[in-house]
């Protein structure tokens, strides 16, 4: 008798667990970059949205290239990246709709405290890179066509240089995300370029310091785009648009402006949506 009751109880419990997972909660699949995810911003701004809309946001954090690829294939509902040229191409080719500015931060050039290439005295980011090349100081490139990597290439081009992995022994291309690249650069005490957000969230454990910042070329704007429902009818377009509205809304923009201030003494991102500027 007791055994039967126990079995019944377990079955009921299992049924409840399954039922709880089944009904109600929608899912929004958000493809974004590893640097955005690593900063911790999403853990901060997603929960209020999930609560308000009774849903779950699944964050797929990959390289910029793969995030955009996921959008093209309809493997996600919305993409959040920082590669303006690629974003515009994505929309122009009909893969995405409703692109909005969300926020921006900047890149910083970091390196060993002794700064043997003396880039802290450079007048521009391009000059800083030129100094590194001249001193043949170890420089680590993400080498993965990410937003960060593309910015790095832009600066090398500005400096009129084309470092080649393999040929230039001081130039190391690791083909990995920002987190791993920082760990690697730290281990080698090398120079690299990083978005400020990821660097700040790691600075407690790194020996590398910010040696150059502020040049206009180092600005890094983020955009959000919904995957085109006409191309991929199965995507959750309504929830994607709701999320876009949410993240560009004035209140959320203020939240973004607050993120990181308490912990790092400075914000990791600066609000940049139309709604934000209209309310200034």
């Amino acid at each position, binding site marked *: 008798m007791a055994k039967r009751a126990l079995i019944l109880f377990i079955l009921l419990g299992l049924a409840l667990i399954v039922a709880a997972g089944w009904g109600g909660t929608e899912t929004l699949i958000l493809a974004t970059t590893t640097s955005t995810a690593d900063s911790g911003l999403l853990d901060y701004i997603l929960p209020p949205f999930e609560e308000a809309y009774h849903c779950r946001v699944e964050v797929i954090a*990959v*390289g910029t*290239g*793969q*995030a*955009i*690829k*996921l959008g093209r294939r309809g493997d996600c509902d919305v993409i959040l990246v920082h590669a303006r040229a690629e974003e515009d191409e994505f929309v122009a080719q009909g893969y995405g709709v409703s692109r909005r500015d969300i926020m921006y931060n900047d890149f910083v050039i970091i390196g060993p405290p002794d700064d043997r290439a003396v880039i802290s005295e450079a007048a521009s980011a391009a000059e800083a890179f030129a100094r590194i090349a001249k001193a043949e100081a170890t420089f680590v490139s993400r*080498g*993965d*066509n990410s937003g960060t990597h593309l910015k790095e290439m832009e600066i090398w081009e500005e400096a009129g240089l084309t470092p080649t*992995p*393999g040929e230039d022994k001081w130039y*190391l*291309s*690791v*083909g*990995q*995300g920002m987190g791993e690249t920082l760990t*690697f650069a730290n*281990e*080698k*005490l090398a120079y690299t370029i990083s978005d400020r957000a990821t660097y700040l969230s790691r600075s407690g454990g790194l020996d590398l310091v910010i040696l150059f910042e502020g040049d206009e070329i180092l600005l890094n704007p983020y955009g959000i785009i919904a995957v085109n429902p006409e191309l991929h009818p199965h995507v959750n377009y309504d929830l994607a648009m709701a999320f876009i509205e949410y993240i560009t809304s004035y209140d959320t923009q203020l939240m973004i402006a607050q993120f990181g201030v308490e912990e790092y003494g400075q914000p990791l991102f600066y609000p940049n949506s139309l709604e934000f500027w209209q309310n200034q």
Partner: protein
Amino acid sequence: MWGIVLLTLRVSGTALLLSTLIGIPVGCWLGFRRFWGRRLTIAAIYTGMGFPPVVVGLFVYLLLSRSGPLGSLQWLYTPNGMIFAQVIISFPIVAGFTMAAVMGVNPNLRQQLVSLGASGWQTTLTVLGEARVGVIVAIVAGFGAIISEVGAVMMVGGNIEGVSRVLTTAIVQFTRMGMFDMAIALGIVLLLICFLVNLVMLRLQGRYLDQ
């Protein structure tokens, strides 16, 4: 591309060679000798056989890093470091399977050989010959484990273009970049390598396989 293939073969090939040179004698020793702590050692070998490569990678990384005990070797982010990690992964596999193979040979054979006046060396070599099929499987298993792993070589090697990028780490990278066609192409190359190596192993097993 070919640089990546050559490096993959060099790293895993060297690691396999080293772990075979150490693993087969250790396997024989474990199979033949009885000593205090034998069961514990065998348990350790079994654990090593199933140990996740990424944890081995983490362990080796901590050993070889700037702030680690073996940092002065400067093996981190070099093929030497990768070989070191892969030897740790494949050694227990080669040793464990070799041990099982020699223990599977009829014990009467050893007694016969000794009574005929064979030396320790001759006995061991003869038994190994009899256990040939199992010993080759040991090497095949060891190779399979390291040619296909990505955790250790990624952590210890760093996937540096032209220095430490191998097939598995390149596949991960191309996938993250959304270049699936490149990733698949490299995957096929990896499969072909495995297949060809195993064909060679099959030939080595020769007629013993059909007995």
